[in-house]
C-alpha cells in the first residue's frame, strides 16, 4: 500500500499579496496585481507590464548577509518557507533531519542577479572577455540555481534528499510532484516543496518580446492579463513563490497536524513537438491529466474545479481547453475552470506552486477563484471560466495543470480531507 501525501503547511509570496491570508483575499476579490513595470525601466520594451511584488526582504526577517547572498528568487522562497514552517504544527518536531528533504522548482533561476552582475563584469556589454574581478563573491550561487535548494535546506535543517527541479513553466507542479513521490516511496517522511521565480528583468522581457509571448497591452496594465478572453494577446510576466510542508498522511495525523489537503495524483508528459509551440489538440496535456486522475483514482465527474494554466496566449488557452475536453468529456462543460494568472500574472516556474496553493484554498473555503478580465468570450474557448467574480462552490477535488517551454505538460489532482478515499 503506497503512502499518501498530506499538505500540512503553506507559505505564499505573490504579487499584491504576501502571506496565505492576503493571497486568498486577493483571489477571492478578483483583484489584479498587474501594473507598469517598476523593477527596471521598461521604456525600450514591447511589453511593459508585469505582476510585481512590493517585497522588502528585511521586513520579512532576512538578515543583511542573506539579502546580500541571495537572488530575489531565493529570498522569496525562503520567506514562503518560513511561513509554511510556522504554520505546520508539530510535524517538524523531533524529526530526523535525514528524513526531511527539500524540492524547489524554478524555471529561470537567478535571472535578476545574473542580468545585474553581467552588466557590471561586461561593463554593459562592452567586454566580451568580462572582468571577473568585478564579480560579487556570491555569483556562483546565481550561476547554479541549486543554491535556492541549499538556502531552503539551511532554513529547515534538511539532511535528506535536496534538489532543484527545473522544467520550465511546469517546475512548480513538478517540484511538488517529485517531493510527493519521495514521500510515497518512503525516502522521506516530510518534504519542504514548492517553487520560486523572480524573472522580471530586462533579459527576460527581451526574450519574451522577441517571440511576442508577452502582452503589448500597455495602456491598461491592470486589465492586461486576459486568459480565455477573445482579445487576449499574450501573458503578463509575474514573480512569486509558494512553498508547502508535505508529510506522509498517517505520520502527520499521528502527530496531530492539521491536514489542509492531499496530493492525490500527478502526471507529467512531454509533447515532443516544439520548444515553444503547442499542438492544438492538447493530446499530451490530456495524457498527463489522465495519469494524474488515474493515480488519484478519481473519475472525471469527481473533479469539482479545474485550476487552469490559462496564460492568456492565443495558443495556450485553446490548447488546454481542448485537453480538458479530451480528458473530462461532457464534464468539461459543467466544471468551473479558472486562471489565477489573470490576477497575479505568470511567474514561470513558481506559478504551478502558487496554483496548488490556490487550489488548496479553494477546497478549504468552498470558493472558486475567478478569471479576472474575462469580458469577451472566445468561441474557441467555450467552457465555464468563472468570469470576474469568485463563486461559492462545493470543492473537494481539484485538477490543476501546467504547460511550459520544452513541451512539458503536467497535471495534479488535489483533494480535501474528508477521508472518503
Amino acid at each position, binding site marked *: 500500500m503506497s503512502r499518501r501525501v498530506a499538505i500540512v503547511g503553506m507559505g505564499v509570496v505573490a504579487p499584491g499579496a504576501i502571506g496565505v491570508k492576503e493571497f486568498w483575499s486577493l483571489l477571492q476579490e478578483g483583484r489584479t496585481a498587474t501594473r507598469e513595470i517598476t523593477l527596471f525601466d521598461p521604456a525600450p*520594451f514591447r511589453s511593459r507590464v508585469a505582476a510585481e511584488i512590493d517585497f522588502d526582504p528585511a521586513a520579512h526577517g532576512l538578515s543583511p548577509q542573506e539579502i546580500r547572498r541571495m537572488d530575489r528568487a531565493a529570498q522569496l522562497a525562503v520567506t514562503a518557507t518560513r511561513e509554511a514552517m510556522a504554520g505546520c504544527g508539530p510535524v517538524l518536531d523531533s524529526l530526523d*533531519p*535525514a528524513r526531511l*528533504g527539500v524540492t524547489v522548482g524554478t*524555471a*529561470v*533561476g537567478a535571472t535578476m542577479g*545574473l542580468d545585474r552582475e*553581467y552588466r557590471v*563584469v*561586461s561593463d554593459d*556589454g562592452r567586454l*566580451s*572577455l*568580462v*572582468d*571577473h574581478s568585478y*564579480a*560579487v*563573491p556570491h*555569483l*556562483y*550561487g546565481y*550561476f*547554479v*540555481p*541549486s*543554491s535556492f*535548494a541549499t538556502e531552503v*535546506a539551511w532554513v529547515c535543517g534538511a539532511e*535528506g*534528499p535536496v*534538489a*532543484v*527541479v*527545473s*522544467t*520550465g513553466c511546469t517546475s512548480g507542479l*513538478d517540484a511538488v510532484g*517529485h517531493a510527493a*513521490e519521495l514521500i510515497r*516511496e518512503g525516502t522521506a517522511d516530510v518534504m519542504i516543496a514548492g517553487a520560486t521565480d523572480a524573472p522580471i528583468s530586462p*533579459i527576460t522581457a*527581451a*526574450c519574451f*518580446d*522577441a*517571440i511576442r*509571448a508577452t502582452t503589448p497591452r500597455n495602456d491598461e496594465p491592470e486589465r492586461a492579463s486576459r486568459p480565455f478572453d477573445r482579445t487576449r494577446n499574450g501573458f503578463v510576466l509575474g514573480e512569486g513563490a509558494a512553498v508547502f510542508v508535505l508529510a506522509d498522511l498517517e505520520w502527520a495525523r499521528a502527530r496531530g497536524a492539521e491536514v489542509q489537503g492531499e496530493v492525490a495524483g500527478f502526471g*507529467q508528459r*512531454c509533447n*515532443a*513537438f516544439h*520548444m*515553444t509551440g503547442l499542438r492544438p489538440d492538447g493530446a499530451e496535456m490530456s*495524457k498527463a491529466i489522465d495519469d494524474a486522475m488515474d493515480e488519484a483514482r478519481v473519475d472525471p465527474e469527481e473533479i469539482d474545479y479545474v485550476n487552469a494554466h490559462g496564460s492568456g496566449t492565443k495558443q495556450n488557452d485553446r490548447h488546454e481547453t481542448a485537453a480538458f475536453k479530451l480528458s473530462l468529456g461532457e464534464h468539461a462543460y459543467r466544471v468551473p475552470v479558472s486562471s489565477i494568472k489573470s490576477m497575479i500574472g505568470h511567474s514561470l516556474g513558481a506559478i504551478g506552486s502558487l496554483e496548488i496553493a490556490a487550489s488548496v484554498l479553494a477546497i478549504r473555503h468552498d470558493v472558486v477563484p475567478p478569471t479576472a478580465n474575462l469580458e469577451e468570450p472566445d468561441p474557441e474557448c467555450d467552457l465555464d471560466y468563472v468570469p470576474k467574480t469568485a463563486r461559492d462552490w462545493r470543492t473537494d477535488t481539484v485538477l490543476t495543470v501546467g504547460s511550459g*517551454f*520544452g*513541451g*512539458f505538460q503536467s497535471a495534479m489532482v488535489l483533494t480535501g480531507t474528508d477521508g472518503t478515499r
Partner: protein
Amino acid sequence: MSAAAPVVTGIGIAAPNGLGTARYWTATRAGESGIGPVTRFDAARYPSRLAGEVPGFDAADHLPTRLLPQTDHMTRLALVAAEEALADAAVDPAEPGEPGSGDLDDPGARGVVTASSAGGFEFGQRELEMLWSRGSEHVSAYQSFAWFYAVNTGQISIRHGLKGPGGVLVTDQAGGLDAIAEARRQLRRRSRLIVSGGVDGAICPWGWAAQLTGGRLCTGDDPATAYLPFDERAAGHVPAEGGAILVLEDAAAARSRAAPRVYGEIAGYAAGFDPRPGTGRGPTLRRVIESALRDAAMRPADIGAVFADAAAVPGLDGEETAAIAAVFGERAVPVTAPKTMLGRMYAGAAALDVATALLTIRDGIIPPTINVRPARRHPIDIVLGAPRPAPVRAAAVIARGHGGFNSVLVVRAAGTAPPGPGTEPARGTHHARQAV
C-alpha cells in the same frame, strides 16, 4: 513497471578525451588526458586557463542546420550523446511497440530526465551582450529556451519523439546521479524507457567569472599538475564540458524487445544533504553511501570499485576518503577518479562516471587516476597511473555538489543481484530480486 532493477541498454558519451563511447573508453583505459589550455575563448587574463574541452567537435557534422542557431554548445553535445545512446540501444523511440503489447504502443512510455547546472550559459552571455550593447530588439528569439535548465530534456524529447515524463534535476555536480535515480523512479511508475544522464559545460568568459567566484578552480598552466584530488598539492579543479547520456529500460521491457546488450543494472541510490556549516553536525556522505548500498541490498564487500567525486579541495577530499574508508574499510576497495583526465563537467560528470563504471564492469578494467601522488592521510586504495585489471561485478559512484549535495549510485552486472539484504542480517528469501 516492476520491482526488478532497471537496466542500461545504451550509452552515449561526449568527453574531453574522446567524443563517442569507443574513443572515450580507449583513451580512458590508456590514461590519456583531455585537459589543455582553453581554446574556446582567450583565457590569458583569467587566473584559471585550463579546461577539458571535447576535441574536434563541429556541431554541423552531427546535427541538422536548423538546430544550430537555437542551441548552446552543451546542448549540441547532449543531442549527439543522446543519438549515440539510442543507436547503441537499437531503439527508435518513435517506432510503435509490438502489437498487443499494451502500453508499449504508447509513446508516452518513453521519457527523458537530464541534469543541468547552469543551463546554456554561453548562449546566455551572447544574448546578454546583444541586449546591453545593441538593444533588446537584437536578442535572439531562441534565448527564451536555449539557456534555461530544461533545454536538454526538451530538445532530446523533441528530436526523438519521447512523449513520456520529462524531468530536470539541478543539484550542481550531484545532478548526473539524481537524474538517473529519477529515471529509475519513472521506470517504476509508468515508463518503460527513459533517456537520462547529463551533458554540461560553461566554457565562456561569463561562465568563467561565475565559476571563479565558487573558489574551487585551480590556477596554473600545466595540465599534469592542475587537478590533483587526494594529493598534498590539491588546489581545486579544472572545469570541463561533456558528460554521458544513458538509455535506461525496465528490465522486462528490454528483454521483451530483445535489446542487443545490457551493460548492467541501476542497483541502488541515495541522496543526502550536508548540514549548514557552523551547526556542528558532521558531513552526510557516509550515511548516503550506506543508504545506497542498503537500497541495492548489497554489502560493502560486494563493491569492486568506487568512482570518487574527487573535488581536489583538501577539506572535501578528506570528508570523501574518510567516508569511503568508514564504509568499505581502509584501503579495502579500489577507488578511482577518471575525472583527473577530464576535469569536472558539473551535471555531466557523474553521469559519465556511471557510464565508465558500466564499461569497467563489462571489460574488467578499472581506469586509472592520473597525475596524483596521494597524501598519506587518505586511507584509500587509489588506482594510480595505469588501469587495473579486476573482475568488477558492482561499482559505486559518488557525486557531491556545491552547497551540500551528496548522491551515491550503485551499478552492477546484470543478473548478479545478491540473494540477501546486504548490510542487514539475512531474514529470508523475500529480499531476493529477480535476475535479469
